[in-house]
Structure formats: structure tokens, C-alpha cells
């Protein structure tokens, strides 16, 4: 019997190819998309899974009463070690790291790298595998260095590089050779070597090298920027550590810290999903929802088309019933058919997966895993999809078809199915709602993202590139860099060059509490402190509100520039009033004169409010990281080439790794850009599925009413008249869909925009255009289809057998 079902299903597939293509096409799109999203979600849950004993691995995070006192994902440097030493019954092991950014050279090849200085516990605790070298002794020597296989390839072109040397420059310009003592196997993504997306550490230095880099503060209880990890003993929970941690901090750290700090013990697995304001989790939820909705739309399509198609099957159903087929048997038959359809769609989706993978990965900015990287038992998932989706999609049409009255069906009357019109209309209505909502929110997301890159930045990002310079943070170092700056500025390809610690990417060096000279600490304002030379304003074309900016011929040691926000918060009514006034850093002996007020500009993401800023000259605070170049308009590529040539003669030991400010911004908004891309895709997919659905329904409807079209044509109906017959079927549903979709889209967009301190206005225009667009496409589709039917010779339609 089952074989018979399959045979019929298979034949039906080819009997009406258009119907099959439309049904399978919709399911195929939905399932492919769901598989891709499923792969991505699975991969995100695999993070950290490569670590030994991952369920016992925790990270210590910091909850500061005043968020300016420290970073949330780091902890006090000696804390984890002290825990292990004092509570060996609770703690199995601990790990600390210091991430630094250095230039590594192999002879004349220089690269800037993120390097992790580690506690010797790393390999034992997390079980990283070594390809070459002895894991026990690899990092005992303070001059040792361990690389990943990939980095070994990068520097030496091969992986067995034990006993080779690499030289590293420290922050005061000294060089030292390090001996390669080990090469690590490929490290699966985890939060130990890859705590944030900006720092992927694949090069490791021993704890003994800390002093060379001047960071030997791991015993200092006020040193709070060290990521710290612990592995708990079996059966110990994070709450068991609450009191030990409190006691240790109270005993060792000063009062200001112990009063303000709460240390949390967070499972590594959870931390990945929750960090950065639930970033990963939000993305997972968003994508899963989108995937689910698209799959749902595809299923609805299938249901709608199957029901509409049923008029063609009436005769068959009648005959089957007259011949004694029971209702359940018919239900089974139709279910088999839908399962065969879903099987084909799933099969095609699996074939398509490797092809769509790179495209989708690029779209959301993540690697999507290969099919072969899934565990073996995942083979059951497509089977499960086939059964579940097949059942969901098939059960309703099967029930409708199977319950048709035998005699009525034989006569070709289709009374029963017309009662299901409400259901089928609500289904298509749901599709309209989803498509419209997705379209409108996509439009709004895209407007907001354009706004990030638009004219509201407060500075001019055009033709500006930045490059990291070596750190020599001494007054002499500053002087040397100023000379180099002048050399660059003299180039004809370059408009302006500036030396600074910050570029507008949200990362500022330090936060300072500041109050007016004659004021008390009570009125102090925490401010972002920037360090920039006198050319910063011209390079970024930030407008000045009052006073002047630093000038080369100025004695700048006790002078600062603030932004308007700082001026307001410090209590000066106007920018002019602030000029010539003095400000003070508490407990600092000197006070600084405000010589200028700049207009507010977006230094960081528009998610956050513009913060008060105070700008120091590098001569005051000898810290710097970047040279920013404002190139002259014209051939940018050749300008960059000229700068590169100049760079290699001025800074021979430093790689010229430049980045456009535009790309810096793209990094800053990478999540938003990913969201925008994902939104575009789901927008396309949902439109395609809706159009497939409308196409299927209209063609079925035309089939059913082919005779009526004939009659109407004979009576003189034109193409418009006939198109309108079919358009009318969708008008009311579409109207209701608009009424529901607009407020839903508005609410969703508002919710999302709520994340941003600076938002676009949601304009009615957006809604109108979206509705018009969808209406237009649907109308065009219907007219195209009816045109074909209407051009048919009515004499043929009316032939009575």
C-alpha cells in the first residue's frame, strides 16, 4: 500500500510540473535558509567545547559600582592565583593572561600581532595539543615563544619551526630574540585565546617575559585589567566562591576597590552568549526567529497551493471513495505526497548548502560550518525535517481533500473546499503580514545604518586613513614622531597628518574625573581623555565652537581643549565663557587652561551618547598610537603607495598597516551591518516566498475559473476587467495585512532603534513606499498571469466536452 502511495505521489509530481516547482521551490528556499541558520547556531554553541572539562571552566568578571573604574571582563591580577593557593579544595586550576599588541619580525618581515602572555597553566588546564615541542617545558624559559601552526606558516612557510627565532620590539623600542619552543595544533574557537573578536591570540609568550614589556604587575591587587579564569573542582558551583572571593579582596585590595567591586564567576559557555550586552545571544535569537518564520511561510505556501490545487484532484478523490477508499487511507495518501515533496526540497537544500554557505557566511560575517564538520548523528536532522515539515504542511490539505463528499466530487462540485477559504485567506494574509513587516523593518534598519555613515558624524571621514606607529612613550619619542609627522605632512599627496592616541572608533585611552579649578570633587565629571596633536582638528575637519585648538608654536603643557558636552556639564553656559577658564584633575597639582571648545562629534558608536571629552596634547601626556592621514582627493591608491614608500624609509621596522576611517566605522558597526545584510536576505526570501504563493494561488484560481473567464470575454471583458477579478481576491486580505503589518513593524523598529542614542525619525514615507512596492509586485504578477489566460481563445475554454 505504502509503495502504491509513493508511486501516486511520484506521478503527481510530474503531472503538474508548475505546481510541483512552486511548492518545492518555496520549501527548498525555506529549508536551505533554516539549515544555514541551524549550522550557524550549532557552531555558536560549539564555542569553548574544544576545551578540557568545559563544564567546570569559569571566567571571573567584574561588576564595578562605577563602570569607569574598570573593564567588566577582566579582574584583579592576583585574584585567580590567590584563590587556587588559598582554596585548593574548590579550585582545580587557574589561568591569567595579558594581551599585548607588538611588532614581531622574522628578519625583514614585520607584522603587528596580538600576543598573549600566559600563565604556565594554559596547556594543562585547557588541553591544547602541541604539534611540535614539549608542552611541559615549552614556556619555562622567559625567552620562549609558542605559535599556532597557522602563524608558523605565516612567518616561516612551514609548521615545524622549533628552535627558530623571532624578534619582538617592546614599548620602549628595545628588541629581543625569542626562541620558538612549540607549535600548537589548530585551536578551536574559545574564549581563552579569543576573548573578543578584536583579539585572536595565536602567539604565546611566557610569564617570564612580562618584565621585558614592562607589565610585571601580576602581584598587584590594584591592577585590574587581567582576564582571569578558573577551573572548579567537580561538584563545586560558582556560588561556593562568593565568600572566598570577598574575603580575599577585603584582605588584599585597598578599600576603594573592595567597596566598589563585585566579582562574578561565570561559566565560560554562558559568558560567550551573554557578553557584550548579550550580543551573540541576540543574534542567535534574531536569526532563529527569521529562519523559523521563513520556514513557516514556506509551509503555508505549500498548504495554500495544495488546497487550491485540490479541485484538480476531485475526480480522483471521488473515484477512490466510490471504490471504497476510507478517509484515513486518503489522508495517508496525501500525507505521503507532501512528505515526498518535502523530501525533494530537503534533498535539494542539502545539495545547495555548500554552495550557499560562503555567501551566507559573508552576509552575516561569520564562518558557517561545513556539512562534514557536523557529528555523524546529525544525519537524522534532515530526516526529522522531512517528517515534521511534511506532516505540518500535509495534514491540513490531506484532511480537506479526504473529507470531500464522494458524489459531489464526482460531479465536479467543490462546495466543501469553499468553506476553507477563511483559513486559506488567513494563511496568505499571514504571509503578507510577514513580508510587509520584514520589508518595512529592513527599510528602517537600512536607513539607520546609512545614518551611522552619513553626514551626522560631526567630522569628515573622507580620504582619511590611519596607521599604528611604534610606541615610544617618552617626551623624546613624541618629539621623534612629530618630526616624522612633519615629513609626511610635507608630501604633496597628503593634505594633513595628525599624531594621536585615539581615532574615532570608540576606544579611548583613559577616563579622568575633572572639575572646575575653583570647584570641589563633588562636581567632578568623568571624561573621556583624548591625546591629539595640533593637527587633529584639521585632519578630521572637526568644527571649533570657540577659542583655538593647539598650535605648533604654542606652549601646550598646561592647556586643554574640551568638547561642548564637557563645557555644558562643567557648567559654562556658552563655549565662549569656557575659554581661558581652568580645570583640574583631583589630586593633581597642576591645573589646565581651556583654550578651545570643539563641536561634539561621534567619537564612538551612535548607540551611546556623546561623552564629555577633554583633549590633551602629546607634549602633556606622551601617549600616542596612530598617525592619521588626510589624503588629497584624486588617485588614492597612488597616494597610499607614496605614503608607504615614505613610511618604510622613516619607520623601517614597523609595518605600514593602514585602514580607512570608513572601514574603521564598518568595524565599529559590524553587528549593525550584519543585521542589515541578514535583514536584506530575509526580505528577499520572504518576498520570493509570498510571490510564489500568490503565483500558485492565482494560477489555481485561473484554472478553476477558466470557463468564467471565457464567458466574460465573450461578453466583452477586457484584460483589465479579468485581472481585476483575481486582484479582488487579494484586496481585502492585503488591506488587513497592511493594517496589522504597519504597527507591528513600527513597534519592532522602535524596539531596535531604542538601542541607539541617536536615531532616525521613522517616516510615514517608508511605510507607504514599502506597501506600494509589495502591491506593485503582486499586481504585476497577477496581471502577467491573467494576461495569458485572458489571451486564450474563449471558444476553447467554453467547449463543453
Amino acid at each position, binding site marked *: 500500500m505504502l509503495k502504491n502511495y509513493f508511486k501516486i505521489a511520484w506521478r503527481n509530481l510530474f503531472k503538474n510540473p508548475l505546481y510541483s516547482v512552486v511548492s518545492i521551490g518555496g520549501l527548498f528556499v525555506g529549508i536551505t535558509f533554516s539549515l544555514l541558520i541551524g549550522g550557524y547556531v550549532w557552531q555558536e554553541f560549539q564555542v569553548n567545547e574544544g576545551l578540557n572539562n568545559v563544564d567546570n571552566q569559569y571566567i571571573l568578571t567584574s561588576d564595578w559600582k562605577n563602570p569607569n573604574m574598570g573593564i567588566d571582563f577582566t579582574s584583579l591580577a592576583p585574584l585567580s592565583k590567590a584563590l587556587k593557593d588559598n582554596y585548593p579544595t574548590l579550585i582545580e586550576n587557574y589561568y591569567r593572561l595579558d594581551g599585548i599588541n607588538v611588532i614581531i619580525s622574522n628578519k625583514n618581515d614585520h607584522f603587528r600581532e596580538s600576543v598573549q602572555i600566559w600563565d604556565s597553566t594554559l596547556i594543562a588546564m585547557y588541553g591544547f595539543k602541541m604539534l611540535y615541542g614539549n608542552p611541559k617545558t615549552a614556556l619555562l624559559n622567559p625567552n620562549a615563544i609558542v605559535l599556532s601552526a597557522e602563524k608558523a606558516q605565516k612567518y616561516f612557510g612551514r609548521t615545524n619551526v622549533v628552535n627558530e627565532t623571532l624578534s619582538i620590539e617592546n614599548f620602549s623600542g628595545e628588541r629581543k630574540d625569542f626562541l620558538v619552543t612549540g607549535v600548537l595544533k589548530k585551536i578551536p574557537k574559545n574564549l581563552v585565546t579569543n576573548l573578543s573578536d578584536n583579539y585572536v591570540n595565536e602567539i604565546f609568550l611566557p610569564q617570564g617575559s612580562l618584565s621585558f614589556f614592562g607589565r610585571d604587575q601580576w602581584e598587584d591587587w590594584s591592577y585590574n585589567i587581567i582576564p582571569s579564569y578558573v577551573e572548579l573542582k567537580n561538584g563545586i558551583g560558582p556560588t561556593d566562591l562568593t565568600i572566598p572571593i570577598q574575603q580575599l579582596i577585603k584582605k588584599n585590595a585597598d578599600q576603594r576597590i573592595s567597596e566598589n567591586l563585585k566579582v562574578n564567576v561565570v561559566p565560560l559557555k554562558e559568558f560567550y552568549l551573554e557578553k557584550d550586552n548579550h550580543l551573540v545571544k541576540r543574534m542567535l535569537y534574531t536569526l532563529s526567529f527569521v529562519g523559523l518564520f521563513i520556514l513557516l511561510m514556506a509551509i503555508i505556501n505549500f498548504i495554500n497551493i495544495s488546497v487550491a490545487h485540490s479541485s484538480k484532484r476531485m475526480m480522483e478523490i471521488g473515484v477512490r471513495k466510490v471504490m471504497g477508499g476510507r478517509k484515513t487511507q486518503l489522508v495517508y495518501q496525501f500525507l505521503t505526497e507532501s512528505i515526498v515533496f518535502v523530501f525533494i526540497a530537503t534533498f535539494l537544500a542539502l545539495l545547495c548548502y555548500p554552495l550557499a554557505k560562503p555567501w551566507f557566511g559573508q552576509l552575516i560575517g561569520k564562518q558557517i560550518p561545513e556539512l562534514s564538520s557536523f557529528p555523524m548523528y546529525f544525519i537524522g536532522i534532515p530526516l526529522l525535517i522531512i517528517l515534521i515539515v511534511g506532516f505540518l504542511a500535509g495534514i491540513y490539505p490531506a484532511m480537506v481533500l479526504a473529507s470531500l463528499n464522494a458524489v459531489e466530487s464526482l460531479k465536479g462540485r467543490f462546495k466543501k473546499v469553499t468553506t476553507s477559504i477563511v483559513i486559506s485567506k488567513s494563511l496568505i494574509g499571514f504571509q503578507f503580514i510577514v513580508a510587509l513587516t520584514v520589508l518595512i523593518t529592513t527599510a528602517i534598519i537600512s536607513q539607520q545604518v546609512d545614518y551611522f555613515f552619513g553626514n551626522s558624524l560631526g567630522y569628515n571621514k573622507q580620504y582619511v586613513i590611519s596607521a599604528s606607529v611604534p610606541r615610544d612613550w617618552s617626551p623624546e619619542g613624541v618629539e621623534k614622531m612629530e618630526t616624522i609627522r612633519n615629513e609626511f605632512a610635507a608630501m604633496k599627496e597628503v593634505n594633513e597628518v595628525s599624531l594621536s592616541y585615539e581615532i574615532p572608533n570608540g576606544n579611548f585611552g583613559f577616563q579622568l574625573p575633572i572639575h572646575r579649578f575653583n570647584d570641589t570633587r563633588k562636581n567632578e565629571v568623568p571624561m573621556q581623555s583624548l591625546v591629539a596633536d595640533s593637527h587633529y582638528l584639521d585632519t578630521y575637519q572637526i568644527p571649533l565652537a570657540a577659542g583655538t585648538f593647539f598650535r605648533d608654536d604654542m606652549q601646550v603643557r598646561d592647556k586643554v581643549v574640551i568638547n561642548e558636552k564637557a563645557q555644558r556639564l562643567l557648567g559654562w553656559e556658552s563655549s565662549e565663557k569656557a575659554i581661558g577658564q581652568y580645570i583640574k584633575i583631583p589630586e593633581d597639582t597642576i591645573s589646565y587652561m581651556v583654550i578651545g571648545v570643539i563641536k561634539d562629534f561621534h567619537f564612538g558608536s551612535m548607540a551611546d551618547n556623546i561623552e564629555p571629552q577633554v583633549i590633551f596634547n602629546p607634549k602633556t601626556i606622551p601617549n600616542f598610537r596612530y598617525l592619521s592621514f588626510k589624503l588629497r582627493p584624486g588617485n588614492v591608491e597612488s597616494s597610499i603607495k607614496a605614503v608607504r614608500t615614505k613610511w618604510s624609509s622613516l619607520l623601517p621596522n614597523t609595518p605600514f598597516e593602514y585602514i580607512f576611517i570608513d572601514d574603521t566605522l564598518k568595524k565599529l558597526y559590524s553587528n549593525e551591518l550584519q543585521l542589515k545584510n541578514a535583514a536584506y536576505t530575509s526580505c528577499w526570501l520572504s518576498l520570493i516566498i509570498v510571490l510564489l504563493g500568490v503565483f500558485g494561488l492565482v494560477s489555481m484560481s485561473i484554472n478553476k475559473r477558466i470557463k*468564467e473567464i*471565457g464567458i466574460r470575454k465573450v461578453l466583452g471583458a477586457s484584460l483589465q476587467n479579468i485581472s481585476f477579478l483575481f486582484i479582488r481576491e487579494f484586496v481585502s486580505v492585503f488591506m488587513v495585512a497592511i493594517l496589522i503589518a504597519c504597527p507591528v513593524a513600527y513597534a519592532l523598529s522602535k524596539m531596535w532603534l531604542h538601542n541607539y542614542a541617536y536615531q532616525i525619525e521613522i517616516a510615514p514615507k517608508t511605510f507607504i513606499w514599502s506597501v506600494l512596492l509589495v502591491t506593485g509586485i503582486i499586481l504585476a504578477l497577477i496581471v502577467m498571469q491573467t494576461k495569458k489566460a485572458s489571451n486564450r481563445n474563449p471558444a476553447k475554454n467554453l467547449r463543453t466536452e
Partner: protein
Amino acid sequence: MLLELNGIYKWVKSGGNRVFLLKDINISVEEGEFISVMGPSGSGKTTLLNVLGMLDGFDEGEYNFLEEPVHTLKEKQRANLYKEYIGFVFQAYHLIDELTVYENIETPLLYKKIGSSERRALVADTLDRFNIVGKKDLFPAQLSGGQQQLVGVARALISNPKLILADEPTGNLNSKQGEEIMDLFKELNKEGVTIIQVTHSEKNAAYGSRTINLLDGRMV
């Protein structure tokens, strides 16, 4: 002269051969005639009627309708021509199931873009003339065959055509209903409407003033 067919040929290709549906048809019809087309099944009666009604084309020959050369007209002009001058009555009535009697009769006027007040007047007039005012809100399924055909005829006449083409109008009716329809045609003909009907029955053919006999697509 209302219309004229000169040497009309119509064929379909079957394999390499032409199968003729109409062969060398020459007819001229004056206004006010009542013509019956007779012949066995498959002799080409319905095809001829479709050609006359401009619903179907032909492969060779000339067709002039009210001095207009139909064979040279474009699809749209042809449609305008038959919309204006020709009414159709079918054996299976071909009423639209979803529309009431009133709306069925009104449909051709909608397509001719006639204003609503005039439409109402015309439909009321027609309903009255055919004595079906009481049934105007019923759906086709609620009427007997004879009544449905009556609506069909009323619908054909509403736009005041010069020519009515009827394809076995009584084929699905019992004899009494059939007689009533034929009497109606007779009466219309007296009022000046030209009628061409396809029929199997000698008795119905006798209502006409002239009979054209077809056999295998050829006039005999």
C-alpha cells in the same frame, strides 16, 4: 447585408496532414434573417458559429461584417465589433455561478462601460420583458434549466445586438421549455434581430427562414 463569408477554410494539423474543420464556406446573411445550421456531430456547426462570432479565427477566406473586413482586423477591433453587435446563447447557458440573475444580465453592460443609472434601467427593462423580475436575486443554481436559458437569452439581448448566435440553445432543455425559447427567438426575429442557431432538431430548424446543412465541414 449584415455579413458575408467568402471561401472560408479552417484546418488543424494532425501529423503532417491538414484536417479540415471548415471547407470553402460561402454564406451571406441579410439583416432580419433567421438561419438554422444543421448537420451531424463533428460536421463543423459550432466551429462555424465561433467563426461567425469572431471568437475563433480561420485560415483562408474573407469575412465581412457590416462592410468591415473581419479577417484584417486586429484582436481588439474584432472584440469591439462583437461586443457591439453580437449576442451569444449557449447550450450549457454559461451563466456565472457566483452572480445573481440581475448581475449576470448586467455584466455585458459593465464591460461596455455604461453608466449605472442607464444600466439599472436597461436591466429592469430586460427583466420585465422576460418576466423574470421576481427571480432577479436568485443564483443560477436556484433556477430550472429553462429559466437559466431565459436568463442567458436576456443577457445576450441586453446590449441590443444586431445578431444572436445560439449554439443548440434548447439542447439541455425539455421540449416544453425548448418550445418557449424558440418562440422567444421567433418573436425577437420579428422585431428585427438576426438569429443564427445551431440545432439538431428539424422542428427547431423549421422556426428559421433558411437552413444551412453542413457535412464534414462543407456546405451541402
